[in-house]
Structure formats: structure tokens, C-alpha cells
């Protein structure tokens, strides 16, 4: 059963419960426990994490694999255990996007990806080498953070 929220950014938005994601730990430093993942168009590269608790809180996110060919996520054992990752179940990965007036200044946070599985999401610290907090989305020489030696991002 869908419901309606007032979003500062989007106005009145109809939320499909299937888009609701629980963040048991919130986003790092920001908190919040329930967000909806919104997309104007299923093909659009950018989606929005709209807080269901704070109408003014919405973060753009993207699928890092669309921009960074070699992107990988590695978490410390404690995180894997804590979050119940056993490597067998598929999950979606998103990274937050910092928008800027010019596209070439858009960056993605590859250091702290958001892993989503079965409606639950965790923002984790990515241990894979070379994963920047502010990785340019558009102006890398080859169009993305392609693998560079040992770098996974």
C-alpha cells in the first residue's frame, strides 16, 4: 500500500513500499533509519535516497559500476560478520553523489558505499585500495576510475 510524503525537494511524493529501505545504523554521521529509493526513470543513472523522517534530507546516489569499471567493495571481517554478508547473496550497491554546478565536478563517494539487501542497507567503509571519498564521475581520462594497478576503483 503506497503512502504519500512531503519532500522538500520533490514536493508531494507517492512512496511505493517496495522502494523503502531500512538503514539499521543510518547513514554514517547523518543517521536516519528509513529512506525511499526514488527514480524518475528506471534508466536514469542517478537516484535519490529520500529520508522518510526528514523531508529536507535527500541524497543523490548512483550505481558505481556504471561509472567505475573496476569498482569493488571490500569490508573488514567484523563488518561482514556484523552485517551478515557471507558472499553468497546478491546485493545492490550505491554510492552517494556530490553534485556541483559543473558536471565535471560531480564526485562519488567510493570510500563509503551503501550495500542494500532485502530492504536493508548499510553504509560501509570500503577497504578496497584506491577508493576515493570524492572520485570524479565524469572527467577521468578513460571516463571512470578504471583499474589502475592494484586499485579497485
Amino acid at each position: 500500500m503506497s503512502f504519500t510524503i512531503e519532500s522538500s525537494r520533490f514536493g508531494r511524493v507517492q512512496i511505493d513500499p517496495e522502494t523503502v529501505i531500512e538503514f539499521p545504523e543510518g547513514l554514517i554521521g547523518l543517521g536516519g533509519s528509513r529512506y525511499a529509493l526514488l527514480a524518475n526513470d528506471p534508466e536514469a543513472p542517478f537516484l535519490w535516497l529520500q529520508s522518510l523522517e526528514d523531508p529536507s534530507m535527500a541524497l543523490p546516489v548512483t550505481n558505481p559500476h556504471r561509472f567505475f569499471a573496476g569498482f569493488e567493495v571490500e569490508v573488514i571481517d567484523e563488518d561482514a560478520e556484523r552485517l551478515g554478508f557471507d558472499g553468497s547473496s546478491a546485493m545492490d550497491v550505491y554510492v552517494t553523489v556530490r553534485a556541483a554546478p559543473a558536471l565535471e565536478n560531480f564526485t562519488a563517494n567510493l570510500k563509503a558505499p551503501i550495500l542494500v539487501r532485502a530492504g536493508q542497507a548499510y553504509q560501509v567503509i570500503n577497504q578496497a585500495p584506491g577508493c576515493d571519498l570524492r572520485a570524479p564521475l565524469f572527467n577521468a581520462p578513460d571516463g571512470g576510475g578504471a583499474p589502475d594497478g592494484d586499485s579497485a576503483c
Partner: protein
Amino acid sequence: MLRISRRAGERIMLGDDTIIEVLEVRGQTVRIGIDAPRAVPVYREEIWLEVKRENQAAAEAAASGELPNFPTKAPPSGAADRSNEAPPSGAADRSNKAPPSGAADRSTEAPPPGAADRSNEAPPSGAADQSITPPR
């Protein structure tokens, strides 16, 4: 702030469940062991802080109203495979990674500010009942 002096091997209890142990003191470096309940994430402060700032910046940049038009077209070559799945271990699955060849197409096509493609932007406030479809 509570200040407690400890020697190597001594511990501090935070409540009943969290143990902080001084493992080793060597020069300017203290090695600390943390035994916390599973549900408690543990971060190095500087990393926690930079991620927090980045999250805030992402939310604020998005809210500032200075957003250029997000490109709404998927890269042609990446469109076919959108499974967006990655194993947590960072292991094998590279199947859903967009080939770099698609990147050039989308990087330079930003329309000038104010131009046509605004489909991904927020409607003016008060816009009626915008329905946003879930990603599939």
C-alpha cells in the same frame, strides 16, 4: 571527558558489553582492541568524520538548488546489464560493470544551464503529487 590511565593489558568496560583493551603502548602509538556487540559499528574517527562530511555535502549540494541537469540518458553500452550486484567480498563478478567506452558519450553532453533536459530535476515546490516510480 572521562580520563582513565591504563597500562598495556588493562581494559575498560563500556556498559556490560563493550570492552576496550590497551594491547600495546609503543612510542607515540597505542594499539587498542575493541570488543563490541555485533550491532555496534566501530570506525576510526577521521574516517567516520570524512564520510559524515561527505554525506552532508551530498545532501546539501543536492538541496542547494544549484544542480545542473543530471544527465538522464543511460550510457548506451551500459544499459543492457544493470543488475547492479556486487559480492561483498569484492570478488569476481565484473559482469555488470559498464565498459569505459560508454563514458565519453555521457560526459560531455550536459546541456547548458537552463536548457531542455530537466526531467530529473525537482519540480517547483508545490507541484502536485509527483509520482516517482521505483527503480527496477
